[in-house]
């Protein structure tokens, strides 16, 4: 049954199989935590449920510092407490950088499209982008900090350098993969060069480009986290790096799960949007 390629697990089996590793992971965590707490009740490496609850409360309902707390916060409603919490302010700070990085991917898509459509454009940029793509973005981090300072620009540039060459080359390849018949057809229907590029080719490749960006979300976050961990005063990764020094695992773990949840939601939103915007598109 296990190694039969024609196996068809029923609904209950499929559900059980898909959740088994999650359940096992949680069980193993609490088993290990319990064992360590028997040896050392103050253990902070693998916090128990009580410590985790405290960490979640601190992260989700308390501000970063006492000074940052507005007056009367103690009696405020839960949503208000959440909106002034450490987690929320860090999330907003990281989300801003993430949004800027996503916006900067638009020129990357346009460049890839033009490289694929217009040979002169392609010849001018392709070799350079191919070379740029091979540079490990983190290796130029010191140069970025020297060139752009340690402010927001350096962190955003890190993401740009890390992800845009991939998106440019992906878009370029997708553009090239559009059958030449479609381009010729466009001209015979009265379209001009930009009309063919934007009304025919871009519309056809857009769902795949969005998929490519979706698959690169983790890389975007990776570079964002690297920048925040090294030089930042706020943000999700900054907090994780800060708490690491104090062994604040009871807050780090909720933060990590929160980041995973956010990324999952962004991915889901992009997938649903892609499907709604391009009902004709069938994923291979």
């Amino acid at each position, binding site marked *: 049954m296990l190694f039969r390629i024609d196996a068809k697990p029923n609904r209950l089996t499929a559900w059980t199989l898909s959740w088994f590793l999650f359940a096992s992971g949680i069980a193993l965590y609490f088993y290990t935590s319990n064992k360590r707490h028997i040896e050392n009740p103050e253990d902070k490496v693998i916090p128990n449920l009580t410590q985790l609850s405290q960490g979640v409360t601190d992260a989700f309902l308390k501000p970063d510092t006492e000074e940052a707390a507005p007056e009367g916060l103690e009696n405020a409603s839960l949503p208000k407490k959440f909106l002034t919490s450490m987690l929320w302010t860090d999330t907003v700070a990281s989300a801003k950088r993430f949004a800027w990085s996503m916006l900067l991917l638009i020129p990357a898509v346009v460049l890839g499209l033009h490289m694929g459509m217009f040979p002169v454009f392609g010849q001018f940029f392709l070799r350079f982008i191919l070379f740029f793509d091979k540079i490990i973005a983190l290796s130029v981090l010191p140069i970025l900090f020297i060139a752009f300072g340690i402010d927001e620009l350096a962190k955003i540039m890190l993401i740009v350098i890390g992800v845009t060459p991939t998106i440019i080359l992906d878009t370029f390849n997708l553009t090239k993969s559009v*059958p*030449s*018949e*479609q381009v*010729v*057809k466009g*001209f*015979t*229907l*009265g*379209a*001009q060069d*930009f*009309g063919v590029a*934007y*009304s*025919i080719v871009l*519309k*056809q490749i857009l769902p795949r480009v969005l998929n490519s960006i979706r698959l690169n979300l983790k890389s975007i976050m990776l570079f964002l986290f690297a920048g925040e961990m090294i030089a930042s005063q706020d943000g999700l990764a900054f907090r994780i790096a800060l708490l690491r020094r104090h062994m604040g695992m009871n807050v780090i773990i909720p933060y990590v799960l929160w980041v995973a949840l956010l990324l999952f939601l962004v991915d889901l939103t992009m997938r649903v949007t892609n499907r709604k915007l*391009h*009902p*004709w*598109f*069938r994923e291979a």
Partner: protein
Amino acid sequence: MPELIQLENVGVIYNVHGHAPKQVLQGLNLTIQPGEFVAVCGQTGCGKSTMLRLILGAERPSSGRVLIEGCERPRPDRHRGYVPQKYSLFPDKTVLDNITFGPETEEFGLIGRLRPGFRRRREELREKAFGYLRQMGLQQSDAHKYPDQLSGGMQQRVAIAQALIMRPAILLMDEAFSALDPGTRADMQRLVRTLWQETGTTFLFVTHNIPEAVYLGSRIVVLGKDSPESSSRVLVDMEVPESARTASGYPNREELERLTRVIEDAALGGRLELEMAEFGG
């Protein structure tokens, strides 16, 4: 008055990476008058599609000249409609949007769709597109389907409508029915013949199927090589008089025998009879 299409001593050489350049066509001369239905046939690799792409403007000759209405037009344009075998429709657009794409693009361009009159004009064009859909034998309910929801035959019907709505001077069809089943193919052949008779558009139809060429063409051009090493040239160029056709659309027996003999003698050595039998003529 210049000829509609004129190929003057056209040669095409392809540079093949790591190999000697390959001469596909050499010294090709052909003149096509308005209103003709030219069926171009020949064996695979003889340069039929290359010739079509030259006339379309999608490819340039290595030597010689391709003239459209007396001028060299090195890029495809709205005067030359195109129906390829594959990828004939835009997959991201519905049937209706595929058909109206041409007129909308021509009238409004890339950003003109933001102009105030666009919506009203679009409705008019949609009405016109429905007319073409009916002419192609498609239902109104097909209008909002995407190409991948249509059969191969239906897709080609839409592709023909998409090309014809532009009222091109020439309609170039490259093995447009090759992927269709025999029944659908016969239906499409009848449709194309009717459209040619009704619209008076010049058709250039590339096929490797001789019965198809005989049925459709008012003129048959056979491309081929004198020897495996040589490049292709026009081996046969002959008229099929409409008066010689029977009610089924096929040439009568004497005309069919004449066509068969000419093509056999010149090029294909006995293959015509076999394919004609397959076609059920």
